[in-house]
């Protein structure tokens, strides 16, 4: 019902299955615009008269002041290129008596984009903490209403919107569960698409340096072969994130499993040691195979620079093997000194055991917390780990896993290098993206004052994840 006469529907294909893409060609073919409509990836409301109740599967979304009801919407915008010229949130009131209200509510930004659709209750609700986007006046039943959210939705990404009302006679909107005809919509229009139809365009090579790699890599299976084939087509420095070989980190395993696969790129590889590497005492298989690229075998931590603006810190989270990771340990003191003297505006750190992970098999590891703290204190940008055999990306967070858009460090778990996948357990706060069924590598393009990440999946698989964040 939002298509106008001149609009031509071209494609409804979208990776997330959530977007209806409509391409528009204006007469003359000079200027082009594209409109993409997204439905929420999650929506729910909470009610202070039923404080422990979740309504995530409800077809209705209530907003009210008596009882107090707040509603939450989350959209993932993807596949949009060019400048967003317009973003409109559209909500439809329910076709039942009482859905109408003197106030449709106040719509505000939310910084929390990882709340759970089926776990959110009045007692456990995200904060509606951002700027007001708009307010709806009186709403009738069975009708569409629009809020301009162009100031918020500026490109690909995940957006949360919270709605509150001061009316004691609240409004009821249709949720995504009501079906595509009445589900909330985010209509995103871009004005500077360079081709008549929306196509996935690969940006030209920027010449910026690339880091690419993963952890939990080589065993008798075929996952390592699949990820090594990806490296064949990606230039740059290769990193590993530990557990380079299974099961015991022996020289024989390095020769049998790692060398024929990731070993093709050994000359450009700077590795990380994992617990399986240390199953051989002193990780002598690991240090013997990688030689000086792995740093001092009594330490296993080292750093290097990439390009003109980036500093890379490799740490050793096998803490007991090197005298600990605690504050005041040799490694932690070295880290603080190294960060202070690096003189580079952007920093990425990597090791094996994740400080934060939603994986079912290895709990978040507090022993590396002093290293995370040192990195945060020194304004580092990225932390890469492995250990749980899956991919997970966190929002920029402080050392306590609280969202921190000013100084927060983005944590990744990239245990997707080839060893058999693990499942997920309880999903942690601020976990933005997860995958446990695709082998792949993380490619980081290191710009002068920002980084672009891209999960590159094994051949034949479609899961991917990408984005750009500025250094701080």
């Amino acid at each position, binding site marked *: 019902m939002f298509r106008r006469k001149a609009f031509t529907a071209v494609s409804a294909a979208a990776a997330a299955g959530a977007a209806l893409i409509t391409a528009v060609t204006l007469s003359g073919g000079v200027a082009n615009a594209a409109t993409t409509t997204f439905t929420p990836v999650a929506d729910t409301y909470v009610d202070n008269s039923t404080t422990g109740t979740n309504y995530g599967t409800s077809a209705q979304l209530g907003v009210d002041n008596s009882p107090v009801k707040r509603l939450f919407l989350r959209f993932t915008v993807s596949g949009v290129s060019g400048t967003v010229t317009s973003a409109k949130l559209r909500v439809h009131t329910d076709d039942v008596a009482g859905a109408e209200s003197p106030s449709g509510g106040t719509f505000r930004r939310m910084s929390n984009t990882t709340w759970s659709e089926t776990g959110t209750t009045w007692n456990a609700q995200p904060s509606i903490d951002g700027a007001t986007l708009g307010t709806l006046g009186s709403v009738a039943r069975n009708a569409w209403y629009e809020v301009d959210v162009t100031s918020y939705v500026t490109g690909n990404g995940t957006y949360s919107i919270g709605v509150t009302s001061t009316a004691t006679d609240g409004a009821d909107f249709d949720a995504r569960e009501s079906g595509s005809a009445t589900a909330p919509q985010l209509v995103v229009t871009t004005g500077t698409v360079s081709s008549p139809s929306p196509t996935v365009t690969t940006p030209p090579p920027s010449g910026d340096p690339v880091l690419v790699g993963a952890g939990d890599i080589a065993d008798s299976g075929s996952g390592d072969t699949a990820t090594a084939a990806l490296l064949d087509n990606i230039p740059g420095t290769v990193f590993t994130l530990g557990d380079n070989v299974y099961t015991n980190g022996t020289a024989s395993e390095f020769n049998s499993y790692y060398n024929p696969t990731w070993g093709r790129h050994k000359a450009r590889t700077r590795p990380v040691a994992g617990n399986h590497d240390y199953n051989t005492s002193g990780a002598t298989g690991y240090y013997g195979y990688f030689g000086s690229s792995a740093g001092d075998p009594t330490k296993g931590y080292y750093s290097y620079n990439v390009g003109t603006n980036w500093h890379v810190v490799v740490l050793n989270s096998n803490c007991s093997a090197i005298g600990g990771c605690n504050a005041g340990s040799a490694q932690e003191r070295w880290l603080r000194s190294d960060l202070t003297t690096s003189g580079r505006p952007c920093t990425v750190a990597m090791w094996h055991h994740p400080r934060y992970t939603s994986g079912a098999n290895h709990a978040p590891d507090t022993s590396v917390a002093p290293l995370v703290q040192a990195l945060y204190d020194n304004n580092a940008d990225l932390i890469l780990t492995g250990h749980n055999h899956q991919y997970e990306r966190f929002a920029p967070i402080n050392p306590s896993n609280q969202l921190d858009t000013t100084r927060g460090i983005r944590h990744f778990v990239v245990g997707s290098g080839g060893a058999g996948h693990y499942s997920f357990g309880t999903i942690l706060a601020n976990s933005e993206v997860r*995958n446990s069924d695709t082998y792949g590598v993380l490619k980081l393009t290191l710009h002068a004052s920002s980084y672009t990440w891209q999960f590159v999946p094994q051949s034949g698989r479609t899961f991917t994840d990408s984005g750009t964040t500025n250094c701080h």
Partner: protein
Amino acid sequence: MTLSLRARVLVTVLAALVLAGAAVAYAASARSAKAAKDRLAAVPSAPVGNGPRLQVLTNGRLSTVSSADPGGPREVTALACDRAYAAAGTVACLKPAGPLSATSLSVMDASLKERASVPLRGFPNRLRVSASGRMVAWTLFIDGHSYATTGFSTQAGILDTRTGRLVKSLEEFTITLDGRTYRNPDANFWGVTFAADDNRFYATLSTGGRRHLVEGDFAAGTVRTLRDNVECPSLSPDGTHIAYKSAIGGDPKKGWRLSVLDLTSRRVTPLAETRSVDDQPTWLDDHTIAYALQTGDGTNNIWSVPADGSGTTRLLVPGANSPAPSGSPASR
């Protein structure tokens, strides 16, 4: 899930009943009392409707949904469990293990007041409460994390909440394998299910590269093997059938299929679920099996399927796992 208009009206009516105070709060009443002060309308937080409830975990938080509308509104508590089960007023929870803290079994009453706590080592995996609420049985991974690999080890234990007898590992029990007394340090047990007498139980015994269904006698401290390639058994409420997972082609690396074994005729019926299920199934009633599956992004979903091999699978509770038909909260 889309609610029909009629269903929505029904929910509204049920909600009205709740507002009238017709239902009893599931979660701790202390919190409800405190929260009531903060509310405009002084009514307790309560499940929508007062019929039987299904207990589940919502991203690791103990929750309940209405058995009549399992895809509808749910009550979510603050209690964190890696695995949970409930029967006849006994709620069991295997608490998450931290990096420096081990897991523990918490046995609670229906108002979630703790009656017993058992410190344990390992990663929570399976958990059951017998139908009477008396026996609690659990499985933990000690080494490794997957039934699909080799080299993992598990530990299955049982607590008799009436006598306090605690069996930390079924490996203490005497094994009769293929009719002969058997000992092997490689023995691993997992997936316990109890019969109505609270003494007889079934479980999985893995040893010598084979995975057996065993029948056990808790009082006697014995188990005997019944048949091969039966894992994570679950006895039907009427005690006549066992739902279980069996490795495809006997190879756990190929995944598992859900089947039901008729204990009288020994006939095996594969269920309509064709995806690989690595869970201990549960019986919602004598005709319906429930189990959890996880999608690639870590989202758990509870599905159900008819126990007689007919029909199709049904998404029962989105965004949840660890299902347990826990009875009516009003009866607690």
